[in-house]
C-alpha cells in the first residue's frame, strides 16, 4: 500500500463522553481521541503521532456540537465543526467579527466541514488560527477525566508545539468564552496561498466602554513554540483611550515579544515585522467595531 497510510492501530467508537474516558483509562495512555481527523490523521501518516488505538468520538456529535449562551458566557462544544462556527449568528453577534474572520481563512470549506474546535485546540499547532482567537477572547477549556471536570486557562493549555495540558485519560469537552460589553475583535492573517497555515496571524479583542479600553486580548500565531499571548500589550492597552498611536505601540510590543524562527514560510525578522503590523491592524479594526 501507499507510503502515506497511518501505521496499524485499533479503533473503537465512543458511546458517551464517560465511555470515551473509560476507554482512555482502560487503554493506559496508548489511545488518542479521533474527532474530525484533519489534524490527527495527517500526523499519523507522517508518523509524528503513533497511537495504538483511536477512539472515534464522531458518534458524540449530537452531544458535543453546540454553540450556546449560558449566563454571561458562550459555550462551544468540542465537536463543533469549523463550518458551524463560521456560520453561527450567535458568535457573529456576540464577538464581532473574530470567529468569522478566522474561520473564513482556516483551511478550506471541505476541511471546515469536518475539522472541530476541540481538534484545533488539542492539536496545539502554533500556526493554527482558531487557537489565537481563543487566547485573545480569554477562552477557558473544559476538560473531563476519570475524576470529573476541570477548567484550564489558555495560558496553561498549550504546553508546547503539539502538546497540551490535557492528560492521557482526559478529553476536552467544551470551550467557554466570557461575554463583554462594548466588544470588538478581528483576525489578521498573512499566508502563502489560500487555505494555508499562516506565515503570521494576529488575533485581537477589545472591550471599550465610555471611551476607555476595559479589557484587551492579543495573540499571534506561527511566531513561537505555541500561540503567543502578547500580555505586555494587553496590560498597556487597558485603561487607555483607543487611538492609532496606541495600537502602533501595541504592535511594537508584539514585534518585540514574539519568538519566530526561520523556515520555508519566511525569515524570522520578516515574521517579526509582520506580527507587529498585523497586531496593529487587528487592534484598529477591533476598536472600530467596538465603537460602532
Amino acid at each position, binding site marked *: 500500500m501507499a507510503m502515506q497510510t497511518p501505521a496499524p492501530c485499533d479503533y473503537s467508537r465512543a458511546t458517551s463522553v464517560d465511555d470515551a474516558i473509560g476507554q482512555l483509562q482502560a487503554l493506559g495512555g496508548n489511545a488518542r481521541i479521533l474527532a474530525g481527523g*484533519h489534524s490527527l490523521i*495527517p500526523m499519523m*501518516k507522517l508518523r509524528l503521532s503513533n497511537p495504538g488505538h483511536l477512539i*472515534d468520538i*464522531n458518534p458524540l456529535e449530537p452531544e458535543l456540537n453546540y454553540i450556546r449562551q449560558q449566563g454571561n458566557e458562550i459555550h462551544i462544544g468540542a465537536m463543533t465543526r469549523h463550518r458551524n462556527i463560521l456560520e453561527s449568528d450567535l458568535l457573529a453577534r456576540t464577538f464581532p467579527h473574530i470567529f468569522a474572520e478566522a474561520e473564513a481563512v482556516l483551511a*478550506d*470549506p471541505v476541511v471546515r*466541514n469536518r475539522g472541530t474546535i476541540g481538534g484545533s485546540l488539542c492539536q496545539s499547532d502554533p500556526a493554527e488560527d482558531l487557537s489565537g482567537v481563543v487566547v485573545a477572547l480569554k477562552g477557558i477549556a473544559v476538560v473531563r477525566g476519570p475524576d470529573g471536570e476541570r477548567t484550564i486557562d489558555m495560558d496553561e493549555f498549550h504546553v508546547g508545539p503539539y502538546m497540551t495540558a490535557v492528560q492521557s485519560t482526559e478529553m476536552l469537552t467544551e470551550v467557554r468564552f466570557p461575554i463583554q460589553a462594548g466588544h470588538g475583535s478581528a483576525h489578521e492573517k498573512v499566508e502563502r496561498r489560500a*487555505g494555508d497555515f499562516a506565515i503570521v496571524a494576529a488575533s485581537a479583542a477589545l472591550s471599550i466602554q465610555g471611551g476607555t479600553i476595559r479589557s484587551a486580548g492579543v495573540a499571534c500565531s506561527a511566531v513561537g513554540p505555541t500561540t503567543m499571548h502578547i500580555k505586555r500589550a494587553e496590560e498597556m492597552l487597558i485603561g487607555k483611550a483607543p487611538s492609532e498611536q496606541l495600537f502602533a505601540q501595541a504592535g511594537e510590543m508584539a514585534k518585540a515579544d514574539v519568538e519566530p524562527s526561520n523556515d520555508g514560510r519566511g525569515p524570522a525578522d520578516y515574521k517579526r515585522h509582520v506580527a507587529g503590523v498585523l497586531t496593529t491592524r487587528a487592534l484598529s479594526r477591533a476598536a472600530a467595531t467596538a465603537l460602532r
Partner: protein
Amino acid sequence: MLVSMSINGQAYSHDVEPRLLLVHYIRENAELHGTHWGCDTSNCGICVVLMDGEPIKSCTTLAAMADGHEITTVEGLPAADGTLDPIQQGFHEMHALQCGFCTPGMMVTGRWLIDKHPNPTQMTEHEIREAISGGLCRCTGYNNIIKAIRWAAAYEANAAGRR
C-alpha cells in the same frame, strides 16, 4: 473490522484494517476508480466525495469513520440511464478539464455548491471560487471550472422552467 456503507445507493461491506483510508476503500474495496487519490495531505481536493451530502476529503477520513454513512462519488452523478449530470455536461461544454486528475473532486464539489445554494443562477464568482478553494487544478486556471459550474446552474434553472 467490518465496515459497511452505501456508495452511490449501493450497499458495500468489507472486513478492513482500521487504518484504511476512505479513498482506498472506495478505490480498492468498492472498486470505484472515479475518485482520485492525490496529495494525501488534504490539500489538493482530488479525493473529495460527499458523505451524507457534504463534501469531505476521503484521504483524511478513515473508512471506519464512514461506516453507516451514505457516500456519493463521481460515479453517482449520472442518471440511471447514463445521462450525464448537468455538472458533468457543464465540464464538457466549457472545457473545464485538461488532464482530468482534479475533475472528480471539482465536479462533486460543484454539485454540492449548486444543491445547497438558495439561488444557483445568482452565485457570485467569489462564492464559486471559495467553494472550490479546497481543490487544486494545474490545467485550467480555474476559469473554465467556474464557467462549467455556472453552465450547470443555468441549465438546471432552464430545465426547471420548461417543466
